[in-house]
């Protein structure tokens, strides 16, 4: 069978096929259901949903969650959880803002590079703290990252004195570079999301470290007996989660042009939801970086559809919450269904 499969058949059998099909169906449905308007500048009639601005804006909105979701998914595959990503985002952004404010002469590429390094550094530092505490104290990661969620946001609060800090223009120009697409079309966050998802996928699927992460989450005891250094793997996954949160902070802060300690409050739940909707199993051993990105896109698309279909926004939380529960319940039903079929074949 596998020897005769075509690329299309392989694509249809891939683990992304289901989510991609749902996203495409939603895009088609929303395009048909949306109204149209006249663009005030060009005077042309434009579909309210299927236009380059809305599509890139939807991808941009998803990109900050999706980048964090790639890291969070790696943690979840290992059997852990990271509740602190929203706070890492806030602390990385605030640290970057304070440093840039302290060096007002810094601009252009220097400011962009410094900001990227600072955000990545803060993210890695927070990841090392989480990983070190999980391994060193042998406390459940839920508790450790719950604590660090408050601690890191508290540090951001104290250091920023709760001020909103404006960032230099050079950062906004970088994050909002049109890359030849035209005015008010900003593809940098979307492209960054794609790059991070591909890198995450390569790490998980094509490297020994990535296979070790699956092994740890799938069966920790067997992994230990196989001689894997579990502590190192655990610290590694939290480092990656911190790094992706730092990168998301760099992009988000640069895109919106300011940072504050309240940034990304509650985003950790969207991030975990993206991973879960993307098929990651909370008990570990299963998940995919590309699926996490697609999960984030799907959640943002559901949010977008509430507005495109002119549904009452007060129903947003109910609809998103229900979609997440349904996705997980169906996923479990799917797993049971597959297991039953396999046992019947035997």
């Amino acid at each position: 069978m596998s020897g005769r499969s075509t690329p299309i058949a392989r694509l249809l059998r891939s683990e992304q096929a289901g989510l991609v099909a749902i996203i495409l169906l939603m895009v088609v449905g929303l395009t048909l259901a949306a109204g149209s308007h006249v663009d005030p500048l060009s005077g042309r009639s434009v579909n309210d949903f299927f236009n380059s601005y809305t599509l890139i804006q939807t991808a941009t909105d998803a990109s900050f969650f999706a980048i964090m979701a790639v890291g969070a998914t790696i943690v979840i595959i290992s059997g852990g959880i990271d509740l602190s990503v929203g706070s890492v985002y806030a602390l990385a952004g605030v640290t970057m803002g304070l440093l840039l404010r302290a060096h007002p002469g810094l601009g252009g590429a220097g400011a962009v590079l410094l900001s990227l390094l600072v955000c990545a550094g803060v993210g890695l530092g927070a990841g090392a703290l989480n990983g070190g505490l999980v391994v060193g104290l042998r406390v459940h990661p839920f508790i450790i990252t719950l604590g660090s969620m408050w601690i890191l946001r508290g540090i951001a609060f104290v250091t920023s004195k709760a001020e909103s800090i404006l960032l230099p223009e050079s950062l906004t120009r970088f994050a909002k570079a049109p890359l030849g697409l035209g005015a008010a079309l900003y593809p940098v966050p979307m492209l960054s999301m794609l790059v991070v998802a591909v890198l995450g996928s390569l790490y998980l699927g094509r490297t020994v470290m990535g296979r070790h992460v699956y092994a740890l989450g799938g069966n920790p005891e067997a992994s230990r007996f196989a001689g894997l250094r579990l502590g190192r793997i655990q610290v590694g996954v939290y480092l990656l989660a911190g790094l992706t949160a730092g990168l998301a902070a760099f992009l988000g802060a640069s895109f919106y042009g300011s940072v504050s300690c309240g940034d990304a409050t509650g985003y950790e739940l969207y991030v975990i939801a993206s991973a879960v909707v993307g098929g990651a199993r909370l008990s570990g051993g299963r998940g995919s970086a590309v699926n996490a990105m697609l999960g984030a896109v799907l959640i943002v698309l559901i949010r977008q559809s509430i507005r495109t279909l002119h549904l009452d926004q007060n129903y947003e939380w109910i609809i998103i919450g229900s979609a997440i529960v349904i996705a997980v319940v169906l996923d479990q039903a799917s797993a049971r269904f597959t297991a039953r079929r396999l046992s019947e074949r035997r």
Partner: protein
Amino acid sequence: MSVFFRARMVVTALFAFCALAPACHSSSGPSPAVADTTKAAKPIKIAMIAKSSTNPIFLSARRGAETAARDLSAKIGVPIDIVWLTPPTEDGQIQAQRIAQAVNEGASAVLVSCSDAGKLTGAINDAVARGVPVMTFDSDAPASKRFAYYGVDDRRLGEQVMAELSKQLNGRGRVAILAGNQNAPNLRRRVEGIKAEAAKSPHIQIVGTFYHSETPQDAAAEVIRVNNAYPGISGWAMAGGWALYTKTLLTDLDPKKVKMVAVDALPPELPYVEKGLAPVLLAQASYLWGNVGVTKIIDKIYFKKDVPEIVSMDAVRVSIDNLGAWARQLRQWGFPDVPEEYLKLK
């Protein structure tokens, strides 16, 4: 196979959501009265983005906007739709996304109260660059290209709060400041005003500024905690009325020992005026945020009139002398929960 099984079921679930859609259909579309009288003309769509849809003060602003839209629509013969795009909780990043979304979906203008001016400045400027005028209300983004702002001068309002409290205390006493969310720039300016005014009275001592989550329960709990910690407090200068949305302080505090002056005078706060615990409230006419905002936008985009950049709103002093008139005003503005006994007062 399991992926397709999951996909089929999730698609089914999404269709179920679509089937449920009529049950939660938005009221943000055109009101029937408007649609009937103005079927032929091209509608004017005004996107309204307040800070939080869970705060009653913004629901009153929405009512004001919808009433102005209905009245002006009948007058000019063009349908005016208010599209409510307020996020459930305060989040500058989400507000920025919703400004972009409003522009993508063909809004004629945007009316926004900024949770974080720094984050919204770029989005406002993008909207203006794409031909969509933006007006701010309640909380401004002064560095942006918005054409006008309508709201109170927050620093002056803070000064008024302290001046009124000082009168109640005969210029002598220990005063605590209830300050809400430390991130909110408008509240910070009110606190600055309170402190500046207090500094003019040599016998007024500020014991501290106390921040809290902007929920009634958290605010009331903070007042009680601080009162226990500083037994000599004789006055509370409140930058917002959150604590007075509960009834608990009516029983926990003695109006003979403590006096309060707060910003806002919504229906749940009125018993505090009657009992003398808060002899004066300084109300923001939140209904007018929407009502005047929409009127100014129509002046700008339909009548092509010049609109002043700052449209100043004065706070309304509410005391036992005008409690009845204020209660009736609130009822007229659409607040359903105004106590009947106050409606009968002079």
